[in-house]
Structures are given as structure tokens and as C-alpha cells.
């Protein structure tokens, strides 16, 4: 440009200092997360759990399916089986670790699918408004009328038990709440000034959604989704407990809880152990999602 107006710029040292204080939104969120001790601890626990569960053969010595009537319900600290054995003599420790695989899968995958489907539908409904919005939201209301556990039970009752059907049922239970929150956040974002400014540059819906809506709604939706994971784990365990989820002889925490009920009078510690795992994992995800929500609540 020939003669740019000669306006003195802000003090360069000062602007540089501001630049070094962290750039984009997600980088600032990451910075805040790093400073939150509780969340870091929870994340560490979950990472540890994940590693153990994925590399289960390295962490266990016995076959989780290998039972023996002689070894039934041995207590904690039994030589060779440090957490004891279950009601058919299988090593409880290996069953817990291998069971973690299925429990985590059954808890996390539904949220993932619900996020994909529900997130898309919700953001579309929020931005489009009018008839599309009404159609999607009223359909959601119908599904929302069912308590999620009953909905999941009904679906697995019809389709039968097993890991796949569990994931399907829980996805269906989680899609309505994610649609709700995506629509709500997206509808709010539409009225912001910068979206109006984007419309004023002649932009069509798709470009606006891609550049302006999506990056502003992802945050809250993500937080909500991570909080759903903790519920997912409990629901999956609950379904297995009722016999509608993972089938025996597979290891899964909810199933183990059910099977070990009979051990309650013999050795209550053993009977409670799978429940402890469910509790720990669910709590970790819950606190992680809380920490994420707090980190994202950046005062700009």
C-alpha cells in the first residue's frame, strides 16, 4: 500500500509480551488444565487404567477364563491370586483387568457415537431454526420422555444381550441429551454479533457453520459428552448386572458384580471389588469433565 496512515503502533515490547501469554482458545484451556492438580491426577489415573487394560497380558499372570472348583472364593492375599478368586475359581485380578476392556468400551463408545450423530443433528437444528428445528427437537422430546436406563433396557430386551447391542442401546439413550445441548448452544451462537457480521459478507449457511458456529459450540458439547461417559460406564455395568449386557463367561465389571452376589455372605470384600472399580473409573471421568468445564470457562 502506497501511503499507509502514519499512526504509531502500540509499544512493540508490550504487544509481544501479550502474545507470549498464550494464543488461541484451546491453548489457553490446555494451560489452565495443566495447572489444575485434581484434574491432572484424575487424568493420570485414567491413563494408567487404560494402559493396564490395553496391555492386559503384561499385567496379569492367569487366564481370566481358567476356573477351578477347588479354588472358589479364595480371599484377598491368597498365594498366587493376590485379589482372590471368584465364584468359579477364576483369578479376580485378571478378570478385573480384562473386564476393564469391555466396561470401558461399553461406556465410551456410546458417547462417541451419540456425539457424532446427536452433535450433527443438534447443531443443524440450532442454526436452521424453523421447521427443521421443530422436527428434530420434537422427535428428541419423544425419546427424552423415556428415562435412559429404561430405554436401554427396552432396546436390549428387544435386540438381545451382548456388547454390540449394549453399545447400540446406550448410544440411543445418549443421543437425545446431546441433541438438546447442541441445539441450545448452537441457537445461542447464531445470535452473536460476529455471526451477523459473517452473514453481512454474503456468506451461505455452510461456510458460517464451518468457520463461526462449530468452533464456538464444540467446547460446551465436549464437556457435556465427557460427563456422559461416567454415566455410560455405570449404565453399561447396570445392564450387564441385569443380564442384558455382556454375556458370561466374558469378564465385565457389572457382570462380575452380579455373579459375586452369592459371595456377599462368604467374603464381602471380594463381592465389592468390581463395584469399587466402577466407582473409581466413573468418578475419574466425572472429575475430569468438571476440570475441563472449569478450564474452558476462560474469562476472555
Amino acid at each position, binding site marked *: *500500500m502506497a501511503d499507509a496512515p502514519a499512526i504509531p503502533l502500540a509499544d512493540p515490547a508490550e504487544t509481544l509480551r501479550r502474545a507470549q501469554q498464550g494464543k488461541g482458545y484451546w491453548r489457553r484451556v490446555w494451560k489452565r488444565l495443566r495447572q489444575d492438580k485434581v484434574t491432572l491426577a484424575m487424568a493420570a489415573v485414567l491413563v494408567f487404567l487404560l494402559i493396564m487394560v490395553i496391555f492386559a497380558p503384561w499385567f496379569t499372570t492367569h487366564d481370566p477364563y481358567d476356573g477351578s472348583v477347588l479354588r472358589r472364593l479364595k480371599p484377598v492375599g491368597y498365594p498366587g491370586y493376590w485379589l482372590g478368586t471368584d465364584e468359579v475359581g477364576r483369578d479376580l485380578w485378571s478378570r478385573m483387568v480384562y473386564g476393564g476392556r469391555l466396561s470401558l468400551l461399553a461406556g465410551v463408545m456410546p458417547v462417541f457415537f451419540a456425539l457424532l450423530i446427536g452433535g450433527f443433528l443438534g447443531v443443524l437444528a440450532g442454526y436452521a431454526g424453523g421447521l427443521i428445528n421443530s422436527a428434530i427437537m420434537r422427535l428428541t422430546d419423544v425419546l427424552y420422555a423415556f428415562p435412559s436406563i429404561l430405554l436401554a433396557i427396552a432396546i436390549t430386551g428387544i435386540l438381545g444381550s451382548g456388547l454390540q447391542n449394549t453399545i447400540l442401546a446406550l448410544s440411543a439413550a445418549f443421543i437425545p441429551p446431546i441433541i438438546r445441548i447442541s441445539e441450545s448452544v448452537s441457537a445461542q451462537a447464531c445470535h452473536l454479533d*460476529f455471526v451477523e457480521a459473517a452473514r453481512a*459478507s454474503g456468506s*451461505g449457511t455452510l461456510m458460517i457453520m464451518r468457520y463461526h458456529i462449530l468452533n*464456538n459450540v464444540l467446547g460446551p458439547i465436549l464437556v457435556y459428552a465427557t460427563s456422559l461417559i461416567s454415566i455410560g460406564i455405570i449404565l453399561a455395568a447396570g445392564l450387564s448386572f441385569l443380564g442384558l449386557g455382556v454375556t458370561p463367561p466374558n469378564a465385565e465389571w457389572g457382570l462380575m458384580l452380579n455373579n459375586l452376589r452369592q459371595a456377599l455372605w462368604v467374603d464381602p470384600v471380594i463381592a465389592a471389588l468390581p463395584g469399587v472399580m466402577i466407582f473409581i473409573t466413573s468418578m475419574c471421568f466425572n472429575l475430569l469433565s468438571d476440570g475441563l468445564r472449569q478450564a474452558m470457562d476462560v474469562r476472555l
Partner: protein
Amino acid sequence: MTALDLTAMRVARASNPAPLLRVDRLTKHFPLRGGILNRAKPVVQAVDGVSFEVRAGETLGIVGESGCGKSTTARLLMHLVRLDSGKIVFDGDEVGVAHGLSRRDLHRQMQMVFQDSYASLNPRLPVALSIAFGPLVHGATKSGARVRAMDLLQAVGLDPMQFANRYPHELSGGQRQRINIARALALEPRLVILDEAVSALDKSIEAQVLNLLVDLKSQFDLTYVFISHDLNVVRFMSDRVMVMYLGKVVELGPVDRIYRDPRHPYTKALLSAMPSMDPRRRATEAPLSGDPPNPINPPSGCRFRTRCAFAESVCERVPPVLELGADGRSVACHMLVAGSGHSRAAVV
């Protein structure tokens, strides 16, 4: 645009006096929810029969207090809000009709800078991308759009190396408003609407941004519509000024003449209500009492009559028309129209 193009355009314009923007009886009423069924539903008459012209290369200032409709007018011009009735003609083409200018094409010619510098920028995008968004929408390549954004950052006085990848929260109010101006210029518009663009800035920063706007206007050969509640700023920036009250235009004309010799009672009151800057000549009495009334169900006839010292019965019955006077000034007041029936009007 090369220098040759600019000269050619100026020569063409000098010989063609048609206005760049012509607005004819713009009307927008917002219905309110509520009101008793089958009775008159309350309606906000935000803009009612507003007509004016903007000539190429000038700055038209629009002043008025809250509820006068100036912001709604801006949004109607930009087609961000649908008109109820009226016509907008840009450079001879009517907007929104079949063989005229489409909304998308209108936005290539006319752009707007909003008041809230922070809310107008996507907090998740680096500012260069916010600027480049317009060109991207209209088919520019990613690199082409980015180059344009860098050029514009330079033009508004921000070093592209330092500022291109910043986020809005890292910038001051004045810097953000420069980004908004750069964004408005990205599509090479001919007319820029500035809706209270400097109102939220500190006075010292406001002066900087006003200087920038003046420079950009001559550099890019722009036409401005400058909306503000600050009478001093409007006087500085504008060639002609339009005074609005409760959805109607009450006076329109060259800015110096109107400020020196206002004709409409409201304009007179508005100008005398400005603080004087002279401690020895302080106001002893307010020129108008009460607040600007609500645009819901405004007074019949002349809308200013409830606060006007000269209101008479004709003012209640007949709404005044914006009469173009011989000296290029228009006023909407019965007192100045011969034979209107007002006691102060000339007798025909």
C-alpha cells in the same frame, strides 16, 4: 484498483450526478408478542417512511437518540433485517427484485462496521482469518484471501507480522475496531456504514480511529454513512447530516448549515443540549423535558409534538412531510410549510 481506474471513476462520477444509494420510504415495524387477542397488538414502529439519498464520495451522518431508528435503518440497508415496505436502490439497481441487485451482490458493494468491537469478532478465529472470511466466501483462494488480509492490516495501521495471528481478546478496543474496519473493506465495497463505530472507544483512541477513517475514505474512494449519537463526531465526519426522531427523518442537509442554523425544533433542542465546554456558559435549563418516548404506538401526526413547545392542533392531526427547501435542506415541520395551518407558518 489502479490509480488509473480511480481517476476514471472520479471523472465518471463528476459527470453523473445520480446518487450512489437512494432509499425510498423505508418502513419496518416489529410486532410485539402479547397484547389482547383481537385487539390492536403493540407494534414497535422502528422505521417509518424514511427516504434519503447518499451521493458518491460523501459522508452522510445520521444522528438521533435512543428509539429513533438509526440502527434499524442501518440493518435494513444491509438487508440483515427484512423490509416491510420501501425501496433501496444502489447505483441504479434496485435491491431484492428479480432483475436488480441480489443480496449477495449488495454485500460486495456495501459493508458495515458494528459498534461492539469485541462481539463482532469470532473469539475462536485469528483476526486475519476473520478479515479473510469475506473474500473466501466470494471465491478467493486461501492464499489470495490471506494476502488480502495482510494488506488490509497494513492499511489500517496494524503491523501484519505482529497482528495477523492474534485473537480478539489479545487486542485493545481500538485495535479491534481497526480489525472490524479492515474486515469491512475486504470485499472492496463502495459504501461503508459505520454504526456507532467509535462510540465505545476512549476519546484519545476515538481520535485515532476517526483519523484512520478519513484517510481510508480518500485512499479507497469510499462513501460513508456515519451513524452516531455524538453530535460533535458527526459534525467532524459528515458532509450532510440527517436527524431522526422516533422512526422518522425530521431534518436533512449540509452539516455546517444545520449545526449553525437548525430549523426543526427537535434539532434545535438536540444541539443546545450539548455540553458547552465553556465553564462560564453553563446550561441553566434543559431544552427538552422527559425522555425520548417509546416507539411503540407513537403519537399521532407529528411524533415530536408531545415535547414540542410550538405544538398546535394541526400537528396532532397531520404528519409533517419532509419538504426539500431551496437551499438543499429538508425539514419536516408544519411551521415551515406555507399554508399548513400552523400559526407560525407563512400564509399562502
